[in-house]
């Protein structure tokens, strides 16, 4: 059992959790993830670690499918059944000069620790944050604390600049501030678009991929992605890869593989509130898990 120390919404359907996991917290490096299983009948899902301190890891979760929605019903004092990590390779942190970190939606949470590490390595760090609308923007203040520049774009123009993150990136490339390195984390179409923008000027660009995983240790091969024409396992060879070499089309197709099942599970969840199959902690320690 892994106890939730803190839980709060950052935006609608986007919730921050701090979980007690000292072994993972001690080892965590920027770019690594954990596998979470929320309850006894739950699936295993990967979530990138946004931060860690001596004894806790921070996860930022967007409620999209059944598991993330269930997770987002939990509060401080509750627990998740299983939490394992830190998995995957850590981000490669170097001094590049000017590093642009692009976070799309909840991808900002994944980019956050790497942005911090890039700054620590002496880079000039420019963050470009994209969101559909102002309410969905997360971690802006946290990034402003150490970034040299933070630029926000919203699809609807409710905050920052109306438009896409790639417009801002293009502007930077065309400016005297030309980036030497780009990290892009967010929805697949955004990462693919960023890769296209930086391909011609040959700016080193890294993306963090989030394919469907089961074990997270290289055992099942379900998370295989095609990079430079070769099969790689995101869980052990990644999750970060050279954006210019990633086959995004295969990635999106594979991520849609269980869509029918996911929709069914979500519909069931909406019909039946999440009382069933709660974590065994509820039985083991009555009162430890409070109903949502």
């Amino acid at each position, binding site marked *: 059992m892994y106890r939730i120390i803190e839980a709060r919404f950052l935006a609608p359907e986007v919730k921050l959790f701090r979980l007690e996991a000292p072994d993972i917290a001690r080892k965590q490096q920027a770019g690594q993830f954990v596998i979470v299983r929320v309850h006894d*009948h739950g*699936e295993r899902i990967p979530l990138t670690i946004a931060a860690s301190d001596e004894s806790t890891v921070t996860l930022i979760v967007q409620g999209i499918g059944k598991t993330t929605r269930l997770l987002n019903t939990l509060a401080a004092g509750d627990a998740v059944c299983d939490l394992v990590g830190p998995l995957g390779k850590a981000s490669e942190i170097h001094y590049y000069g000017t590093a642009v970190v692009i976070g799309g939606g909840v991808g900002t949470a994944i980019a956050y620790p790497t942005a911090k590490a890039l700054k620590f390595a002496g880079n000039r760090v420019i963050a470009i944050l994209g969101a559909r609308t102002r309410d969905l923007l997360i971690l802006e203040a946290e990034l402003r604390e150490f970034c040299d520049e933070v630029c926000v774009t919203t699809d609807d123009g409710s905050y920052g600049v109306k438009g896409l993150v790639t417009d801002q990136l293009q502007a930077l490339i065309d400016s005297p501030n030309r980036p030497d390195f780009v990290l892009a984390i967010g929805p697949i179409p955004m990462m693919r678009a960023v890769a296209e923008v930086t391909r011609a000027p040959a700016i080193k660009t890294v993306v963090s991929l989030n394919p469907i995983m089961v074990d997270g*240790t290289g*055992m099942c091969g379900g998370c295989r992605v095609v990079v430079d024409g070769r099969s790689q396992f995101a869980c052990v060879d990644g999750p970060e890869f050279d954006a210019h070499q990633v086959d995004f089309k295969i990635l999106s197709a*594979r991520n849609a593989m269980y869509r029918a*099942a996911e929709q069914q599970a979500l519909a069931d969840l909406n019909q039946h509130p999440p009382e069933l199959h709660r974590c065994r902690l509820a039985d083991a320690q009555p009162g430890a898990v409070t109903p949502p």
Partner: protein
Amino acid sequence: MTNNNPLPPKERMKIPRQRMPEQPSAERRANFAEVNLGLSTALAHQEALRCLHCKSHHCFTGCPVGVKVKDFIELVLAGDFLGAAAKIREDNVLPAVTGRVCPQEEQCEGCCVLGKNGEPLAIGYLERFVADYERQSGQVGLPPRAPMTGKRVAVIGSGPAGLSTAGDLVQRGHEVTVFEALHELGGVLIYGIPEFRLPKDIVRQEVENLTRMGVEFRTNVVVGRTVTVDELLGERGYHAVFIATGAGLPVFLNIPGEHLCGVYSANEFLTRVNLMKANQFPAYDQPIYDCRDKNVAVIGGGNTALDAVRTAVRLGAKTASIVYRRSEVEMPARVEEVKHAREEGVQFVMLTNPIEFLGDDRAWLTGMKCQQMELGAPDKSGRRRPVPRAGSDFVMPVQVAVVAIGNQGNPLVQSATPDLRTNPLGYIEADPDCLKTSKRGVFAGGDIVTGGATVILAMGAGRRAAQAIHDYLSHGTW
């Protein structure tokens, strides 16, 4: 040991080998319950009467963990089933498991003298019988534990090799912690072997027995990530480490289209069902591609391939086929598995090699381009090498394909332990007898050393490792 058999040897040889009662194939196609139902007491007694009680006990030497077969059979004949189970436990911590999944025909039964002029003694059935009797009686005769030595051993992986080592080491008075990466204990016994061949409650019970013997288990620890081998030997205070992580890195065919939706590794296909219970979706959250009304092809000819194809049958596949590049004679799967699969309607497409997966515009698998093969001269495995027949390409319409052609060594522990020597396939180099690695205090055994093998061979390695670790902890010499 006394001879409890009232029959003279000639009479014993007249008794036919008892048949294992089975769930009818038409029924079991639609459920995940165990296929083999186990011998009754009467059948077990009748089968045990067949034992010739030979002076030269080949059955004993044929067993990778050295179960004293003749002795436990004598106890069966005496009606002392709990004694028989305890006798097996002296050498084998997982009798209910090995009684079900061992390839006895190649081991104890393969060495049985009865087999020279007929069918060998059904040692596997009898092992399973006494182990089940013991479990159902609730009186598991756990071996005694020696006085505590104050030495601590970390075992990495809770599969057959790790459990076997852990069982032997706690008996010798050492403190043992088993670290498991997944959320359930048992390794391949949990995620790999299906319920219909090895019910998971049995694995849980065996793990529970080890807990009662004093083994400590920690789930959700990925050694190499959560903690390193050096930390285990250093700040965590372990005196020795046994690496038994298994051969968990699936090999793919490396042919076009392997990334299409509907193409699985056997590890993933089986893990989704066995560990995550995807067959019970939506009661369990992890899904698997709905195989109903689909043609499912499993590529490979080993036990894992057979497990996968029989799982596909139970998931409601319209057709479920084994596609193998050699002929049936060369298939490494157990004869019993092939028989059961055939009864369940599995088709065997032999001498056929996939060369491309074909998909639709949504990247879903629609078919498999294959070439027909013929057998040429023997290769280094001693089996005749399959060679393609020119112009024999054809397309097999399939919507799900499961690649079951083996594994490589999982690199997680090795990559975080630079002074651990590995071979080019990623397996850890260890002395075959004492299982010492290139790193002091670190032993390795099972599939992570040998590559994919069997439960019992891993358990044999676990036993040898336990002996070697015990010697090392006792004398301190490497």
